[in-house]
């Protein structure tokens, strides 16, 4: 691919100081986002995906949070070197974010119009009048009926799905280059989820925004993403295109994730779960974080973190099974994705 890189994470490490000790939430993440693509970061709760997105926005509260190491290169500039003032100019203008819970993400005592206008006035230095006009346009863009009336309403007058549209409108206000969507549909009803995903796809087509989609829902990933990064225990354990991850996964954790996805045409009505729980990141494992739950774990997995092995195309996987000395293992039959997702 020769597409321009817009965002690059290099060896990002984020820790949190808690009463129970230091939690190493993100332990060396490398990621690349290209212009106009949608990259999905997939993983279960506590895998570090939300922390990664917050780190990009510079929203890690410190203390207790601390970015220990690494670089976040936005168009070649390291955001971690930016002053507070500089990063505030990037936030909302170049990179913006959609949050998980639309019920709490809006200020309850402020008209939604004002909430959209704030960012516009700050970043584009336009008059209140123009900002308001733009806010109405944005509400129309995200599919809110009667935008010129609803612009003066308060968040509680909107339904959950409508609020998420408002949140998206806020994020889109200044035509950002990157949109980070942190579980944008998790808190919504299934029918509304589809609408929001359609909306996001529409917007990407119209505006060419690059999207980082944080989710644990593989259905959403299949719907929206071109590339996928699978996170586990604060590390990216596999990355590749959507097809590579869904049809040729190499990491046992990815196998597990795909197997645990309920399928419409499955012969069995049993749900396949991955046994065990994610590692305690106060005492991060020396080796592969997935080893304790991995049915194929070998002695080497416990003590040594595997390197990335590149396979065909852009797929990279961190697993000892891909070492030439390891026994050959075939992926389980349960991972088959119908392709109709």
């Amino acid at each position, binding site marked *: 691919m020769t597409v321009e890189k817009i965002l690059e994470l290099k060896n990002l490490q984020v820790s949190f100081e808690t009463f129970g000790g230091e939690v190493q939430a993100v332990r060396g993440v490398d990621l690349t986002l290209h212009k106009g693509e949608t990259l999905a970061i997939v993983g279960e709760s506590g895998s570090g995906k939300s922390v990664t997105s917050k780190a990009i*926005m510079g*929203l890690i509260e410190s203390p207790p949070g601390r970015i220990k190491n690494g670089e976040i290169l936005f168009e070649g500039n390291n955001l971690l070197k930016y002053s*507070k*003032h500089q990063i*505030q*100019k*990037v*936030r*909302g*203008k170049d990179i*913006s*974010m959609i*949050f998980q*819970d639309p019920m*709490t*993400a*809006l*200020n*309850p*005592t*402020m008209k939604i119009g004002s*909430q959209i206008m*704030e*960012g516009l006035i*700050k*970043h584009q230095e336009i008059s209140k009048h123009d900002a308001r006009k733009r806010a109405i346009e944005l509400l129309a863009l995200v599919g809110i009926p009667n935008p010129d009336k609803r612009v003066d309403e*308060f968040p*509680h*007058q909107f339904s959950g799905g409508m609020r998420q549209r408002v*949140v998206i409108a*806020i*994020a889109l*206000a200044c035509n950002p280059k990157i949109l980070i969507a942190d579980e944008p549909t998790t808190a919504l009803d299934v029918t509304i989820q589809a609408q929001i995903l359609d909306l996001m796809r529409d917007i990407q087509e119209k505006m060419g925004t690059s999207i980082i989609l944080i989710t644990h829902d593989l259905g959403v990933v299949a719907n929206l993403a071109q590339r996928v990064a699978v996170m586990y225990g604060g590390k990216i354990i596999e990355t590749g295109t959507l097809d590579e991850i869904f049809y040729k996964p190499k990491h046992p954790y990815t196998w597990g994730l795909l197997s645990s996805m309920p399928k419409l045409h499955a012969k069995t009505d049993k749900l396949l779960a991955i046994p065990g729980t994610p590692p305690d990141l106060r005492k991060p494992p020396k080796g592969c974080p997935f080893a304790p739950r991995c049915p194929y774990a070998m002695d080497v997995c416990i003590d040594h973190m595997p390197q990335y092995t590149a396979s065909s195309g852009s797929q990279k996987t961190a697993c000892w099974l891909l070492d030439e000395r390891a026994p050959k293992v075939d992926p389980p039959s349960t991972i088959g994705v119908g392709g109709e997702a």
Partner: protein
Amino acid sequence: MIRYTFERLCYMVVTFFVIVTLTFLSMQLLPGTPYRNAAKMTKEQIAVLNETYGLNQPVPIQFVKYITNMFHGNLGYSFQYDGRSVTQILSEKFPISIELGIEAIIIGVVIGLLLGIIAGIKRNTIWDYTSMIIAVLGISIPSFIFAALLQYWFAVKYQIFPVAYWDGPINRILPAFSLSTIVIATVGRFMRTEMVEVLQSDYITTAEAKGLTTMQVIFKHSIRNALIPVITILGPLFVNIITGSLVIEKIFAIPGIGEQFVTSIYTNDYPMIMGTTIIYSSMFIFIVFIVDVLYGVIDPRIRLAGGK
């Protein structure tokens, strides 16, 4: 919203009636004669006075009369001030107490909010701890002890401020400040909790993600939302102010209703006690009512939820 206001209004009327009745009945239970030099008076003299003040009539009739008069702005006649009306005495002293109370509330709310906001923003720093130590001291130390200390140090020992009375603006400083300590402490603590809660909410992250500066986030999003619940403690604060004013006015010899109330208690001046109780209670009931309605007006969630 209208239904809610009406409901509150009904409570207000019921409570008011209960207070008037209770006050009246307690006054009937009071022992002793209310006249200043009853011991020296003859039976006939007392009978004449009873006649004048209507004390020889049956209790229910006295009650109905009292209520009727009350609605005409007549709270009876003071036993101590030779036939001056309670309404007249109270209306003379009322502005003084109101002024002192308002000054104390302004000082207290301003300092309290500042302490609370700083403590909330700079949570778990020396700022936070200092503010909260001030708050614990303010809540713990009774205002009359604080007033006595201030009076001793700044008026008696170093003579920076006048010891007592209510002549010029300089006389206001010590009493208003002593009265405000409880307000500072209560508002400061409450505001800190609210700030901390607001600062942890998701919409603050949204505001930060828009690229707003820290100051914009604090002023436009945090303080406004944290302030709304503070309105709810105005009712209890008002009682604190009245309680404080009784002792503060006594200490600084301020001719307000608080000082008058204490004197009336010493002298068994029933009509004055009744009048003052009714004034205090109506003010309190009215403030609680206003706070309830105001809260609905300010918080759009309540305002519109009630209107639908």
